[in-house]
């Protein structure tokens, strides 16, 4: 076995990963096959691909919530066993606990780490303020808007100070303005804390505006990365302004050409 890059520089590495699911009619559906992917420490990688191709499945592999049928997942050079303790995961779905307030939801990770309540509460307040939710500490999730709930979930993820941030279409359900605000927030936090980010999105513009590298996943079954595009736009970025950069449009066209083919293929193949 030889190492392509010295350990420590590579936060996540998937090698020849396959993952299949049982279908209701008793068959087997191979969602991912032959997936090779590396994410360097501190890098912001965006993952795009047609709907249903296996983006969430790939994140679940990295999170340790699913195990690959074949191949291996390494985190900072070590094979992943069980849950990935160095990562946090912002889910595609709403996963706040409805019976806990915004503040209690945010402090959950610290409670699990047995941090004293008062200290956890203070930190949770600070994080809520950082995501622009000062004054909403005592609201229950149903009393918050969809965008606010996503912010709470983001704070809930960041408070545990993960080295790797897995994000599954976190801003998909938001209106354009809220979304751009949150994208900028995320970039600022990422810039300050230099986390490794693996960011799944449907939206190619979002992928380019945020990331260092865009990875395109092919249509399923047996989806795998079929293209990688480094994004060489200057940082720090503002997601609205960066779209006006001519290099942005160039890159967009090049990635879209590949992605469109996959989207059409997914559409024709059906599920």
């Amino acid at each position, binding site marked *: 076995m030889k190492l392509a890059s010295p350990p420590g520089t590579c936060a996540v590495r998937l090698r020849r990963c396959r993952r299949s699911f049982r279908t209701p009619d008793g068959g087997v559906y191979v969602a991912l096959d032959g997936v090779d992917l590396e994410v360097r420490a501190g890098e912001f990688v965006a993952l795009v691909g047609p709907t249903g191709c296996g983006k969430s499945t790939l994140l679940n592999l990295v*999170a340790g*919530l699913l195990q690959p049928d074949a191949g291996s997942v390494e985190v900072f050079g070590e094979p992943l066993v069980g*849950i*990935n*303790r160095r*990562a*946090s*995961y912002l*889910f595609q*779905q709403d*996963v706040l*606990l*409805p*019976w*806990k*307030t915004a503040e209690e939801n945010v402090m*959950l*990770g610290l*409670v*699990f*780490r047995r941090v004293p309540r008062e200290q956890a509460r203070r930190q949770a307040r600070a994080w809520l303020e950082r995501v622009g939710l000062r004054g909403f500490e005592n609201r*229950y999730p*149903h*009393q918050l808007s969809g965008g606010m709930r996503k912010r709470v979930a983001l704070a*809930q*993820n960041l408070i*545990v100070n993960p080295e790797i941030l897995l994000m599954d279409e976190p801003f998909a359900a938001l209106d354009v303005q809220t979304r751009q605000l949150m994208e900028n927030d995320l970039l600022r936090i990422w810039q300050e804390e230099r986390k490794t980010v693996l960011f799944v999105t449907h939206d190619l513009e979002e992928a380019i505006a945020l990331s260092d590298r865009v990875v395109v996943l092919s249509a399923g079954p047996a989806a795998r990365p079929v293209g990688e595009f480094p994004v060489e736009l200057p940082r720090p970025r503002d997601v609205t302004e960066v779209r006006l950069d001519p290099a942005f449009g160039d890159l967009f066209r090049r990635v879209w050409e590949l992605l469109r083919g996959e989207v059409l293929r997914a559409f024709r193949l059906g599920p």
Partner: protein
Amino acid sequence: MRSGWAHNARWGLRAVQAAVFVLLVVAWELSSRWGWLDPFFFSRPSSVAERVVRWFATGEVYRHIYVTSLETVLAFLVGSLLGVVVGFAFALSPGLSRVFDPYVKVANAMPRIVLAPIFTLWFGLGVLSKVAFGVTLVFFVVFFNTYQGVREVDRNVLNNARMLGATEGDLVRHVLLPSALVWILSSLHTSVGLALVGAVVGEYLGSARGLGYLIQQAEALFDTTGVFAGLVVLAGFVLAVDLLVTSVERRLLRWKPPAHVEEVV
């Protein structure tokens, strides 16, 4: 504007409800006075009221209320505790639920009243046999709801908690138990009601104390007035318990989005 209207509508409704009550009582009283109803079989509201007042005045009814409350509370607590524990065990261990599934189904389908004589035999005529009887009623409601509540927890919610570092114990405490509690609370009226049914029916079938005993005793003496007076006290008791349950429910389900319509007709 709207809430003012709702307010009026509510009071209007209360007025109509009260009017129906008064009308029925007056009709009953007059029919009995005018000889349309035989007071031996039907008594009359004024005698019933007099009896109830006397019970409270002499204080003899209090020990019956006390015993019935005690049995209800114990049956509810023990039945709920067992229901939660067994419900959790079944939900978390598929093997267990597979093995015991037929037993649970049969036990639940069995009319529990046939157990009352056996419990009297085992536990005597006192409080214990009524509690045991009530437990067999409460247990299944709480058990099924706990089981359902734990099984219904969203997988992503669980995974999110796991990613945040939850141990199995944390999952139970912060996710599974509260989720089951929603289901258990939604059936709180039913389970408390069943605890009360267990107590009263148990007393009725054999005891020396309690509201069920009071009614049974009056019935044995063909004392219709006593039976009705017992029913009135029981109804008041049930109402009080129900109000208590509602307020507990409100408090524990504060986090829930309110049901969209106020009780406006």
